[in-house]
């Protein structure tokens, strides 16, 4: 009864085209952002901040990046982790070699470097499509990681390419508590998510979707395929690059090229699919889901072990639980695809539709 747009008339085009046209949505969204910025850092403990919230936000950013490429522009990519690696190592080298460079510039330039690399590896997309392209992006995945390990300049001659991210400075202040790291991550993610949402509503985004739905038809109506596809790769890699830089600076602190494996690329692809292709909100939901499921599984197997221990004096062997985790994870993905192939974003939409009618049946 609370969630109803009756009586909200739009008098201008601007009002009609805003991101959240329903007033209740706007109120909830603003409340959520205020809550995330003001309340969460004050009440959440260190575990929640650095093991749950920061990774969720960073993965959400990378997922938005892949979603722009795969969900909006329809180009399947398996090289996400490699573009994140480019961002992480670009940020490290910028910080190392350009003295006194401010943090926002580092993050932006890390994204720009990743965008450049992404555009280069997007070149095959002009000729090949579908799964052929997906496999071709694997070349980026393996080549970039190999190059980062092999050429020790990238990691300032450290052994096996491990880098330790420098401390983050902003306006002369060192950001090193989890709460500060969380806040800077949140600020970057909110800003870029808003930018992505608006970009996808613009003519660029519409061109992406036209290419996704049928690239020949898009070319016929005058969308330059080459520019659009390369732009999609560049923007997507920009987001992945910034996410990679945050991954190194705000989340892990120490990263190595081999940390950016194909597995990570797959994880982000899962986030896109589970969250919903072609949805910015879905990117957040998918990232949260994929980060939280292993934690939830871990907690529940520990709980199960505790129960078994106390009742039967017997517990599951460690190898069993880790394999069980793999199986449950794989099973969940199949289950999800079978039940709701359009992802959590679609479920959210259905829920909203239901809520509009509630408590009446029609």
């Amino acid at each position: 009864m609370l969630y109803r747009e009756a009586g909200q008339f739009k008098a201008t085009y601007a009002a009609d085209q805003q991101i959240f046209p329903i007033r209740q949505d706007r109120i909830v969204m603003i409340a959520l952002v205020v809550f995330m910025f003001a309340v969460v850092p004050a009440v959440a403990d260190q575990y929640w901040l650095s093991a749950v919230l920061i990774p969720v936000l960073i993965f959400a950013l990378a997922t938005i990046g892949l979603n722009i490429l795969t969900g909006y522009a329809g180009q399947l990519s398996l090289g996400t982790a490699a573009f994140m690696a480019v961002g992480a190592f670009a940020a490290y080298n910028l910080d190392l070699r350009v003295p006194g460079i401010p943090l926002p510039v580092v993050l932006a330039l890390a994204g720009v470097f990743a965008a450049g690399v992404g555009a280069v590896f997007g070149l095959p997309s002009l000729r090949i499509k579908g799964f052929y392209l997906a496999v071709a992006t694997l070349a980026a995945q393996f080549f970039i990681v190999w190059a980062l390990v092999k050429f020790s300049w990238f990691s300032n001659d450290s052994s096996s390419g491990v880098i330790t991210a420098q401390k983050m400075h902003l306006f002369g202040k060192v950001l090193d508590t989890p709460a500060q790291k969380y806040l800077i991550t949140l600020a970057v993610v909110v800003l870029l998510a808003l930018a992505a949402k608006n970009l996808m509503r613009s003519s660029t985004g519409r061109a992406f979707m036209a290419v996704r739905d049928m690239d020949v038809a898009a070319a016929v109506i005058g969308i330059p395929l080459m520019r659009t596809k390369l732009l999609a790769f560049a923007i997507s890699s920009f987001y992945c690059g910034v996410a990679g830089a945050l991954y190194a600076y705000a989340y892990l602190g120490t990263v190595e090229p081999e940390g950016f494996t194909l597995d990570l690329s797959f994880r982000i692809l899962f986030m896109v699919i589970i969250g919903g292709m072609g949805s910015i909100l879905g990117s957040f939901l998918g990232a949260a889901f994929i980060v939280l499921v292993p934690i939830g599984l871990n907690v529940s197997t520990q709980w199960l072990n505790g129960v078994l221990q106390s009742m039967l004096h017997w517990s599951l062997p460690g190898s069993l639980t880790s394999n069980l985790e793999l199986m449950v994870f794989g099973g969940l993905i199949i289950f999800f695809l079978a039940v709701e192939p359009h992802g959590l974003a679609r479920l959210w939409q259905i829920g909203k539709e239901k809520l509009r009618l509630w408590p009446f049946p029609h």
Partner: protein
Amino acid sequence: MSFFFEVLVAGLLSGVMYALVALGFVLIFKASGVFNFAQGAMVFFAAATFAGLQQEHHLSVWLALPLALVAMVVLGLVIERVVLRPLVNQPQITLFMATIGLAFFIEGMSQMFWGSTPRGLSIGIEDQPFQWVSDRLNINISQFDVFAAFVSGILVVLLALFFQRTRIGRALRAVADDHQAALSVGIPLQYIWAIVWAVAGFVALVAGMLWGARNGVGFSLTFTALKALPVLILGGFESIPGAIVGGLIIGASEKVAEVYLGPHVGGGIEGWFAYVIALAFLLVRPEGLFGEKHIDRV
């Protein structure tokens, strides 16, 4: 020069091993349009089951082999029933994602059944060079590689006969050509898919035994899928001869590059070189060497 030939032959023979894994992909893609990422996991599961039956339960080869085959066929049937059937009519990318989930599941399952410690596997062929070839031509050719190539050759001939000469094979080709048309002339689609997955399981078992005998049976067997992908895109997703030719090209050029180019850039190029070759081919022929040409219409 004889060194070059030695490298080339070794490359060609290892390419056959890649082709063996790629075959499993092609079979499934041809018949159901599913890009089965779980093929690597199936190879691992097959090899682990075979080795586990042999070593943990002390069965003879002739008992372990049919049992492993039964396990693979059952796995194929279950996959068709549990994974594919609910996902009928979904876009290809959804099915692809489902097979990645499937890969996780099978990996977890095989490690749960057979443990995660790698084991050795012997199929009675030593990885030794042929003595008389080394003596006469001064080229070392591994007996094992030749045996593997021989097995793959037989497998390809069998599959070709199965596809071309049997009733089921004809139905398979019809389904591959056009699902709707096949359905409308009364070919049971799901029955055909179940058969294809079972056959892919059989191919996975053969690949798993050969790869396992070569590198040991462990989790690393799942990475054979990554070796097969460049072969696939080079040969074309829909072509069995493409898988073989692609495997030979990738295997040979990879080995040659590793020996002659590798030292100049610091080594370790085998992880990505195959992909670069495949990419270079794709830029000339976007559907692979033998893939079906798709004509886009608005």
